[in-house]
């Protein structure tokens, strides 16, 4: 039984999200970071690189001095004294300016180490014409979807990264929680449970595991049915997406995204 219930996935996602709350989406920036950047780039960037990842002088993003620094207490002495034996001059900055440089450098380390703050971009490499052909052809998307129906304006509703994921498997996921996004839940699967007595129950599938089925019947009532001795058939609207996950190529994925991006 390959159907994965949505509920445990959501629980898992939220639970892991709380663990990674120490990562999470970026906090509102400290104004000293931008002030520090304005000092750093012209004064230090020539040797350390404008993003502090190093050129002729060391990478400061992973620097032990920077990572141990608190508000400039380690960085300050290096900046004020320089490292003459290694060719770094001394800089006569004020304590405020040193705090600002330190804030900028800390923001660089934070940006590198917090992967949920990374920006995903550059997705639109596919060919919209090929994507349209896939949509109406091999991909069989048009069996259930229409660019003038349910997918009208789809590109206005989702960012490219989310559209690319959802065209394969349209369900909220871990990354939505981590990046603070809302994502539409899929329509429920329909389940029919034939009991040992021969009677059937049907409804929207809420949960299924080895031991029980939970469905919502036509009147809106939740029914919990022990699984033993029953026959279960599930009509999962995402079945075609489950299959797509295993078969779609990267090229087809990029092309279909390019086509869907035209549906603004």
């Amino acid at each position, binding site marked *: 039984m390959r159907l994965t219930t949505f509920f445990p996935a959501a629980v898992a996602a939220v639970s892991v999200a709380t663990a990674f709350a120490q990562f999470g989406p970026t906090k509102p920036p400290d104004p000293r970071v931008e002030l520090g950047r304005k000092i750093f780039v012209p004064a230090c960037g020539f040797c350390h690189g404008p993003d502090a990842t190093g050129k002729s002088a060391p990478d400061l993003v992973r620097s032990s001095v920077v990572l141990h620094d608190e508000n400039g207490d380690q960085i300050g002495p290096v900046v004020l004294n320089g490292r003459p034996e290694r060719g770094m001059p001394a800089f006569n900055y004020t304590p405020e300016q040193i705090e600002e440089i330190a804030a900028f450098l800390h923001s660089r380390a934070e940006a590198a180490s917090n992967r949920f703050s990374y920006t995903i971009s550059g997705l639109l490499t596919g060919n919209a014409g090929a994507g349209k052909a896939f949509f109406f052809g091999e991909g069989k998307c048009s069996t259930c979807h229409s660019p003038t129906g349910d997918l009208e304006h789809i590109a206005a509703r989702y960012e490219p990264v989310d559209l690319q994921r959802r065209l394969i498997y349209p369900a909220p996921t871990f990354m939505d929680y981590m990046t603070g996004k809302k994502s539409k839940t899929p329509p429920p699967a329909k389940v029919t449970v034939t009991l040992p007595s021969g009677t059937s129950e049907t409804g929207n599938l809420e949960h299924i*595991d080895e031991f029980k089925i939970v469905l919502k019947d036509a009147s809106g009532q939740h029914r919990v049915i022990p699984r033993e001795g029953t026959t279960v058939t599930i009509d999962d609207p995402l079945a075609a997406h489950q299959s797509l996950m295993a078969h779609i190529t990267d090229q087809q994925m990029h092309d279909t995204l390019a086509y869907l991006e035209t549906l603004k």
Partner: protein
Amino acid sequence: MRLTSAIGAILSFALWFCAGQQLPSNQIGQPPVTMWPTYNGDYSGRRFSPLKEINASNVASLEKVWTYRTSNSGVNGFAGWIKSTPLEVNGTLYFSIPDNVWAIDARTGRELWHYKYPPSKAIHIGSRGVAMWGDWLYFESPDCNLISLNAKDGSVRWQKPIADPKLEYFCTMSPLVVKNHLIVGVGGDSLDNPGYLESRDPETGDAQWHWNVEPKPGEPGSETWPDIESMSHGGGMTWMTGTYDPELNLIYWGTGNPNPVHASAARKGDNLWTCSIVALSPDTGKMAWYYQVSPHDTHDWDAVQTPVLFDAPFKGKTRKLLAQGSRNGYFFLLDRATGEHLLTAPFIDTNWTLGLNSKGQPIPNPKKEPSRDGTLVAPSSNGATNWFAPTFDPESGLFYLNASQNWSIFYLTAEGKAEGFAGRDDFLNFSGTLEAIDYQTGEIRWKHDIGGMGSGLLSTAGGLLFDGDSSGNLIGIDPKTGKTVWHTSIGQNLTNGPITFELDGRQYLVVGATNALIAFALPQSKSGGD
């Protein structure tokens, strides 16, 4: 008469002297019966118990004996779940979550003491447990202090730093006691730190040896990195507990994946000794052999999964074997004396390789590396399996693990110099399947859907395999057929590895489920005796 009473006096004295030591280190290697004295129960990593009192014919009578709920830990949510495998020694259970160690009475669940370490800014994600040697416990704090506690009352004997948390190291693993060595590993993949394994003196905490996952310039393996900068920031964390063969006197450890995690171009080459199973001398740290299960990994698939040791027939001859169900989706079988490769087989459908090379290593397909516009890969960065303990049942001859057929889209995000993760992946689905692998052929004998991956496994001579599903059930399974023979709803999902032990002739089964430790046993009237 006087001679026997003298001998009696000497024996009594010897017993009294030894009784002062709760856990002599030479007891750790025995198959776990009255004790579960180390993370995997014994040194083999099989998580197989010889106990038969609970068996397929009476498992339906199992009842809950006690529940212990953690409180006042200061750690909420996912990080505070019990992921540690408790130790059971002399009727006391010792277990941990980040910043916290508890001792509870194994028969009653009553708390004996609770130690709290001051909270820190280090990443809190989980703790796999404590180690024990003599009367002392050993615990890695999230900010990478190695702390030795008195097992009687949880008081601190000493603490020694084993890594610098400011460099984004964080520590979670359960150390391994081998003779007079305490083997400790480290974690921390956010900012390209070098990984290593250390041996510490269990009396003082001082370093005995230090083995680097990345070679130094000029050392063997350095030719698999393009330059010193990438090699000295290459990652490769040792965040899970390894195994040990006392006859060969070798420890076996899986190393983590290289950094920057998703950036291939920054570190062209196989990147040794990341993603490798290594055999080291526990006395010197010298490497005897290695086998790299994921050359040049770019998907966050470490190889820290338990290297399980067993002696069994392979192609007609009994051999000293080592098996790993690896995060990258492949099962590996090696000769643990020499490192000779014996078998590689996928245990999920993967899409990232160009096949296997002549050494049985998967050849990564460059087209399936993370990319700016996204690459669809099976498995996701979570892996086809993860830290959840596997088990090997010598009676069925099968290797069991909780696996996941999952996909995600991998993105490369680094602009300019790649550092840290340099990308991330977008998960498409979650799934979980308990799989039984025939180690001789790699064939998957049977599969049992469990919904999601979240816990480890235990097998017993009672003909039972214990697992948890993602619907809050503890399940007893026939190891030969995969059929469920018993289950009970515990309301929460299992989050650690189940253990079993015998006290006063009664067999207990203890599982961790989020913030509760729960013990099961047969009702007293049916238990005990032959």
